[in-house]
């Protein structure tokens, strides 16, 4: 079980949240100009680290707003929480 601190509502059970996978994936500015390899990279290839991972969550059963979390995928420790548009905090440890 994860206790996820929503930046607007506070700490809640992970059952209230929807997962949005890796954060900071930008859609290519001109999709028509990408190669097949670049487009495949954008569509299907995500980081999959064992350790700190910047990911998106949405508080589906609460405020329904998206935000970013840095979470250790091995220990499940939540290392940082920040709002959309903010940059990932440098420190991966709280």
């Amino acid at each position: 079980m994860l206790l996820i601190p929503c930046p607007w509502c506070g700490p809640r059970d992970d059952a209230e949240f929807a997962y949005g996978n890796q954060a900071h994936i930008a859609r290519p500015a001109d999709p028509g100009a990408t190669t097949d390899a670049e487009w495949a990279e954008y569509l299907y290839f995500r980081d999959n680290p064992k350790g700190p991972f910047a990911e998106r969550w949405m508080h589906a059963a609460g405020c329904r707003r998206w935000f970013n979390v840095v979470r250790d995928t091995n220990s499940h420790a939540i290392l940082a929480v920040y709002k959309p548009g903010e940059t990932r905090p440098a420190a991966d440890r709280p």
Partner: protein
Amino acid sequence: MAQAGRRRGPTGKPRYSIFALARNALSYHENWQAAWRSPEPKPSYEAIVVGGGGHGLATAYYLASVHGMRKIAVLEKGWIGGGNTGRNTTIIRSNYLWDESAAIYEHALKLWEGLSQELNFNLMFSQRGVITLAHSEHELKEMRRRVEAIRLNGIDTEVLSTSDVKKLVPIINTDPGIRWPVMGGFIQRRGGTARHDAVAWGYARAADDLGVDIIQNCEVTGFLKDAAGAVEGVETTRGTIRSRRVGCVAAGHSGVLAALAGFKLPIQARPLQALVSEPIKPVIDTVVMSNAVHMYVSQSDKGELVLGAGTDSYNSYAQRGSMNIIEHQLAAACELYPIVSRLRVLRTWGGIVDTCPDASPILSRTPVEGLYFNCGWGTGGFKATPGSGHVFADLLAHGKPNAIAAPFGLERFQGGYLIDEHGAAGVAH
């Protein structure tokens, strides 16, 4: 393929038989030979398989038995069969939608059918049938379409009415008033279950018999590459081991290995949970799956009800998931099988599955010459163990995929030739 007859490899291991059992009974079973050796790693091998689960051990076994290689190592970071091979719900079937999937899963099922004899190891393979339920009009229609597609591939399957399901599974609740009523289903009678640990042990023993070195407690920490960028060995916690042919079969940790080798895979590691009830007398002699409520059930020979759940939505390597997934699964179990509500849960566990965007596996060459990956089996790899090993051994031996493996290459993500099996995978990703 190895002879099913009086196989006796270089290690001269005696065969298991009723006579061996009687003979060993005379010495109080204290003189059984070890099923496999625990050798020190050699400096180099013809081929290295990274990952000592069912798929990896099967790969090594077929490299030795079909392709005649003798210098093979299986490197396992923990103990063999300790990952997803020992954590799944042991279901075997080949009722997939697309031709490519039918080819590989049916190849596996046909190998399962003679595997206990071939390996001289009782895998407790039981073709008790696998039923998939439909809970809505739409699901029923989609299921009929899938049944026809499966039959066109020559794989046995048939549609069941609600009363057919009730006849096969007397404990099921067919009341039309429940949240997800049973509106019918379909069955693959050749499907069933096998003893998961025995699959690892049987392949390990047979591979060891053919000279394969099974090296446990040996974690790969890096890949050695030559000047041209081709693989020439691995760094491990037990030293450097050289080989120009390395196959990675590491399930949930495939992404970690790919990162060490310097490339990315379209794979996400997710927890998949299962649980067993306390043991009870036989109440269900088949396997019943339900996609709509993400729950499947069978009964082990010990009498435990084995219940599988859906995956957790988030990435994890922790081999555990969230409680709400188990709650959801048990709520569905209690409504579909009311007798379950009086049972206690004996234990729950999780494994890390390597989910792929199209719910189909990857058996492929990689950007690193000589390095091959067999991964992406996600939530349903156990059923494919023999087929996966057989086909991957062929890829390792020849350096290019055979007709069964070809559609499962990494190139499919760039070419758009995805093999979308989310419907047949049985577990939502």
